[in-house]
């Protein structure tokens, strides 16, 4: 995994830890981004971690681009030795798959899709070799996901499925991005899942919708009163399929301030996970549901 450094204009240093996505690449980029933050390099104004890369915004009036490059490169060695262990939390997110709102939207933008004759779910199930949409939904909600990046728009989580590479769901993004996506759409592009935190443009395939707000600038949602953004990189997510009635009930609970997503603190060790993926996932699920 050799690191590539490149400049985004005169104000950004872009660091690609790996071209391919993997949990190793994610942990490497997270630990390097942390290293840069802790080193307190002068002129650094913002550090944005991503899936397998990260970006540093700097003020070139304070530090010359050559100098920041040198400083960041010097952190590479120490970051490689960091223990791949995360203190984090696991959270259950209810999803109404195949809902009417994303369905209406995907029909509206059909000419931008690879397969204009079906739905995004039909397409994703077929190209991932699932016999039916139900089987596909079973796989999507059957294993936990790592939040490997927060961004695109306010508070949107990118999620990486915690299964062997050959079992991971992969779909292309839309041929041309849509100009509209319903708020709280559960989507997928490349190997990444996401939840659209707000309504807006997007290029991911659309599978369903969650009733659980994850960004609230008014901070009136009960579990978002301390900070308006729910997700942080490193969170672990487990989806739970729900039907229309449960969806409507959850929306009402959110409105009345009594919706509380199940959340548990957990510790995650990448080495244990790699030794026994299903066992680690079962343990995580056990902690979430307290059995």
């Amino acid at each position, binding site marked *: 995994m050799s690191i590539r450094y*490149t*400049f*985004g*204009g*005169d*104000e*950004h240093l*872009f660091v690609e830890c790996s*071209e*391919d*996505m*993997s949990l190793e690449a994610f942990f490497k980029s997270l630990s390097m981004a942390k290293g840069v933050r802790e080193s307190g390099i002068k002129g650094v*104004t*913002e*550090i*944005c*971690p*991503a*899936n*397998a*890369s*990260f*970006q540093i*915004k700097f003020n*070139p*009036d304070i530090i*010359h*681009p050559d100098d920041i490059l040198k400083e960041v490169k010097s952190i590479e060695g120490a970051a490689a030795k960091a223990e791949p262990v995360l203190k984090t939390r696991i959270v259950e997110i209810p999803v109404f798959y195949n809902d009417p709102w994303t369905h209406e939207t995907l029909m509206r933008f059909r000419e931008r899709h690879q397969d204009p004759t079906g739905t995004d779910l039909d397409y994703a199930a077929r190209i991932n070799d699932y016999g039916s949409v139900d089987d596909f939904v079973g796989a999507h909600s059957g294993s936990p996901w790592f939040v490997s*990046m*927060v*961004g*695109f*728009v*306010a*508070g*949107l989580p*990118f999620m*990486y499925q915690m299964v062997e590479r050959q079992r991971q769901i*992969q*779909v*292309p*993004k839309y*041929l*041309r*991005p849509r100009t509209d996506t319903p708020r709280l759409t559960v989507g997928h*592009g*490349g*190997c*990444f899942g996401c939840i659209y*935190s*707000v*309504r*807006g*443009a997007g*290029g991911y395939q659309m599978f369903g919708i969650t009733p659980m707000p994850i*960004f609230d*600038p*008014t901070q009136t949602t009960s579990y978002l009163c301390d900070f*308006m*953004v729910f997700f942080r990189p490193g969170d672990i997510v487990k989806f739970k399929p729900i039907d229309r009635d449960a969806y409507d009930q959850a929306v009402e609970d959110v409105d009345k301030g009594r919706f509380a997503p199940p959340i548990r603190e957990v510790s995650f060790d990448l080495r244990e996970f790699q030794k026994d993926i299903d066992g680690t996932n079962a343990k995580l699920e056990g902690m979430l549901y307290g059995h």
Partner: protein
Amino acid sequence: MAIKVLHHGLSTTVQDLGRPGYFHLGIPVGGAMDRYAMRAANLLVGNDEGAAGLEAVFIGPKLEFTEDALVAITGADMPAKVDGVAQPGWTAFKVKAGQTLTFDFLKSGARICIAVSGGIDVPEALGSRSTYPIGALGGFKGRPIAASDELPVGKGSLANEGKTVVEELRRKPGMPAELRVLPGLYWHRVTEESQENFFADEWKVANEADRMGYRFKGGRKLDFVERDQPFGAGSDPSNIVDSCYPYGSIQVPGGTEPIILHRDAVSGGGYFMVGTVISADMDLIGQLQPHTPTRFVKVTMEEALAARKDRAALLGRLRATFA
């Protein structure tokens, strides 16, 4: 004091110099597209450069003032009128209580900055008054202004009436527009021939051009260097494993239409980027109208830093006129 909105124009938002520090959560810096113009407008009416004003695109709003105030219009050339009487641009003029500020048709550029003495006094959100509409954050109720809104205005001074910015300190894009670009990021993904074409071709601003990004059309399609797509990127050759997007970065989905991300940028995504517009030229982008012929000009980092210095010197001269 307050400003009553009689008509909102096309899309008029409260903006200052933005809210840095939250891009890692997907919340962009925002702020005026043409920061130099917003700084100048504020200085003209005696405000701090970072006070909040209004940014209007293509069509000006219609505003009634409840108390006397100084106003300055900068950026695009869109003549202002007070109760029907024409007012000069880049100049502080007085609007009396009960008078109405309106605008003529746009003559050049795309966005005006409207500064009012005392500044637009909406509450700060995450340290800024800038409007981030898709996040319903900041500004006036998190959205563009609308008829019958009453915009709160802080306490200001009328001392600067008649102050003006001299012609050579008013910064405007040329025709055709030129935007200087530092190649990089995923530049290596396109063939040498496409790298040359990208800078040789004349592009035109497309209709999909807003505060999030400016789309361009008309140049030749970019061809990609062949490779097996990395795991997780998706199958299109223009896809990458989703990464951060720098402000000013140029992504080319499908290799066809470049999009320059601007102040309300999405913070990351899965399309490769060919490079980044240099910081010195970011202000110019928001003044480009749809169909404006545009060339991308290749520069080195040293040239980018020299341009940045020139721009800082221009701002220094502007500030000196108000010292």
